[in-house]
């Protein structure tokens, strides 16, 4: 469970304070599917980064699964990220020198998982994503959709409980984007908490809970009826 209370994140630009987030209160239950929409610069990425422990709020409290995580050190936060968070980015962020399989294995390498266990886990995820025949391909040899699937595979290889996707379809055509969202929804269905930032209202409305942001605040928070 994610509990944010009174979260503020300010940037000093010149001699002015720009509030990327101001007084955000938000609780997200385990297994929720939340979409975050809003105009550019409204603080969506900042919110996701704070939830993902990549960024620290200037004010407010963040409790993750009943634990206060704002007071953790950088390396402790890295540990929490490693165990509980999976990230999917708009620009995939794959390492161009490494094969698809090696990109997916990267979190396991950082976590110190032995090589043979890595191989079986990577093979399994590749199969789930329908990428088995692309294992040895470099990112540049893959299509956009395939790249994002590799990135999603990398995000879930550590079996996190929360998946954070910041405009995961922003760099894909509509059809491929829908495939990727379907894939993410499949992961949500298997129990993951899913947070998706998107510009696309059609995709945003597929989430069970929809947040709208403006000027660093959440201006609406609606639960839609699950599609019959």
């Amino acid at each position: 469970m994610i509990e944010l209370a009174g979260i503020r994140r300010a940037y000093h630009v010149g001699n002015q304070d720009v509030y990327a987030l101001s007084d955000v209160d938000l609780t997200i239950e385990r297994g929720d599917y939340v979409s975050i929409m809003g105009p550019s610069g409204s603080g969506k990425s900042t919110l996701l980064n704070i939830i993902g422990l990549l960024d620290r709020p200037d004010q407010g409290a963040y409790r993750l699964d009943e634990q206060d995580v704002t007071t953790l050190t950088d390396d402790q936060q890295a540990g929490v990220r490693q165990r509980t968070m999976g990230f999917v980015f708009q620009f995939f962020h794959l390492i161009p020198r490494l094969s698809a399989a090696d990109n997916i294995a990267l979190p396991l390498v950082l976590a110190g998982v032995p090589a043979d266990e890595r191989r079986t886990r990577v093979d399994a995820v590749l199969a789930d994503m329908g990428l088995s025949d692309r294992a040895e391909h470099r990112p540049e040899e893959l299509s956009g959709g395939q790249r994002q699937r590799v990135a999603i595979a990398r995000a879930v290889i550590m079996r996190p409980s929360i998946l954070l996707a910041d405009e995961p379809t922003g760099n894909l055509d509509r059809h491929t984007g829908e495939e990727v969202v379907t894939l993410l929804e499949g992961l949500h269905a298997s129990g993951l908490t899913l947070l998706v930032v998107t510009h696309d209202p059609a995709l945003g409305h597929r989430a069970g809970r929809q947040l709208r942001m403006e000027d660093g605040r959440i201006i609406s928070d609606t639960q839609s009826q699950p599609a019959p």
Partner: protein
Amino acid sequence: MTFADLFRLTLPALSAHKTRSALTGLGIAIGIAAVVLLTSIGEGVRHYVLTEFTQFGTHLIAINPGKTTTMGTPIGTIASARPLTLQDAESLAAVRGVEAVVPFVQGNAETKFESRRRRTNIYGVGPEMPRVFQLPVASGRFLPPDDPRTARAFVVLGAKITRELFPGVNPLGQHLRIDNSRFTVIGTMASKGQVLGFDLDDAVYVPAARAQELFNRNGLMEVDVLYREDMETETVAAGIKRLMTARHGQEDFTLTTQEQMLDTLGSILGVLTFAVGALGGISLLVGGVGILTILTITVRERTGEIGLLRALGATHAQVLWLFLAESVILAGLGGAAGLVIGVGGAALLHALAPALPVHTPWYYVALAEVIALSIGLLSGVLPARHAAKMDPVEALRAE
């Protein structure tokens, strides 16, 4: 993250920019090659000089007339200094620890056998000379232990004189003229070749008293003392000094121990090797700066990756090591290439100029590689720390 993983992640990064990596590694390679080559030459020279010096043995003390200061300028050699005499030399045998004493007078004279003549070195010495200087006799025997003052006119021939004056003739028992004195040949020396510029083969050995007569001198040029291996050099030297001062009434002589000489020589040559090596070290420094530059560029290029790594749970230390590994491996590979070039160059030099002594001790090679790795580590630290300290959000945004 294991070492193997670090390697697996780093090598593709290096091979992604082959030319760049090769050039950066080359900087270190040239530095290491220069260090190895130059220290090989320095060490070779040191080795050469020291073996030349120690082939006479190391437990020697030389006594010369006149007092020399530590700076090497003779003082008080004027009227008051008394010459070293054969009696002085004889009396030294009584000093504790002394095994053998050789008086020494040297000059140049014409030797003549039948119609053959040759100008050569005349060494006036004592019967103990072969033992003290480890110069073996080839045939016959060396000078007998006569009373040094009335020693008989015997001569022992160096190898070259034997060849030149007695071709096809057994010299033993023959009479040799030195200037106008007649000497009986009683032995020949084994060939020794050049030692520090002295041709010991182009020489004849006669009793010191006879050489004094030939050259009309009343003193000795030097007295050499061989002492027991189990004795402290200082003890023996002190004993000699005490006795000689008592005999002469003052310290009008100079002692030089072989140990002192080797120490001084060794440290001078060691400094030389070090200085020459340090010269090569300058190019290593340049190589290190090259790595620093390239790694700084690399960190900037891969800012997005750094953000990603942090998002995937990498700690500061892991990011640090990922970049440090890159500079260390680069420097290590460059260093290894430099070793090959350096050792190969030393061997080539040796083949092309056999006269130039070249010596590459294995620990220099190991040390050079350790230095290369340390340089990689040192020049990687700044950029790698920069990478490790990056804010992940900023870093992710960079792409």
